[in-house]
């Protein structure tokens, strides 16, 4: 392996390490195989991988909380929540009623529209000026 190809492979390993985390089991199969091969011969890669695994282990360990404290928090959360009134549910129209309302509204709006087969006065004047014929309408 040339120094250039090692550098590019190492950089790719770091990018994947940051994307997928330190658990190689979570990596896509191909990427995992390449990572395992690199880890075998690169102490630099192993050091970075170990650093990620230590960070993740510390994340897991620092999550621990004492159960008693958790129970206390839960009790307070429930007390606080239940002292507040709940929102009334949102009432929605059944879809058939909503469709009927939309249909009636559509018919009403349709009636208001002026439908005309004739050109408007402005268009007629424009056609007259340009010598056009009304037959196009």
């Amino acid at each position: 392996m040339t120094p250039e190809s090692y550098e590019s492979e190492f950089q790719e390993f770091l990018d994947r390490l940051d994307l997928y985390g330190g658990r190689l089991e979570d990596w896509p199969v191909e990427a995992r195989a390449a990572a395992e091969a690199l880890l075998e011969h690169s102490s630099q890669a192993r050091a970075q991988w170990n650093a990620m695994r230590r960070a993740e282990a510390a994340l897991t360990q620092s999550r621990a909380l004492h159960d008693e404290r958790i129970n206390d928090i839960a009790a307070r959360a429930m007390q606080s929540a239940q002292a507040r009134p709940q929102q009334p549910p949102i009432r929605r129209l059944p879809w058939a009623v909503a469709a009927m309302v939309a249909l009636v509204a559509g018919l009403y709006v349709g009636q208001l529209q002026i439908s005309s087969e004739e050109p408007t006065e402005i268009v007629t004047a424009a056609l007259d000026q340009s010598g056009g014929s009304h037959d196009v309408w």
Partner: protein
Amino acid sequence: MEDDDDELIVRVARGDGAAFARLVGRYRTRLIAMTTRIVGNRAVAEEIVQEAFTRAWINAPRWKPQGGGRANFGGWLARVATNLAIDHTRRARSVPLEEAAEPVDPTLSADQEMIAAEDRRRLGHALTKLPPRQKAAIALTYDQGLSNAASAEAMEISVGAFELLLVRARRALREAMMEDKAS
């Protein structure tokens, strides 16, 4: 058999305290862990989680079940808590560094436990330097155990944007561990 979240919420909407207790019991630990990670202070995290549960109680009658139960409600709760935590962190820029929980793992030797404790201290220090949204990405992934897609939904961003936050956060933590080792 465990009740589905959607079933529990229907009961909560009718004012059923026992159903609410079940939901609180189901999500409290992960939510507190996640929120503590973002705000860096347990007492503040507890208040935020309390507020998230209060919102769940208040809005239960308006909850629309989407199928799949737990993921949806859990995702909604995570979203509320994450947003509250990020808002808090932005308002109070100087978050005091809280002492991390110091659990003793019985499977570790005294030496290993000492190294692990030192790693937790380093991690805690590195976390305080992360921007709030990167902390949220770490918290949703490691404390809440959500997938990238679910975490992105909780943060109301695209999966790509979430992955970018997570990559940057992980890189910062990894480099912090490396720096400490070097020094």
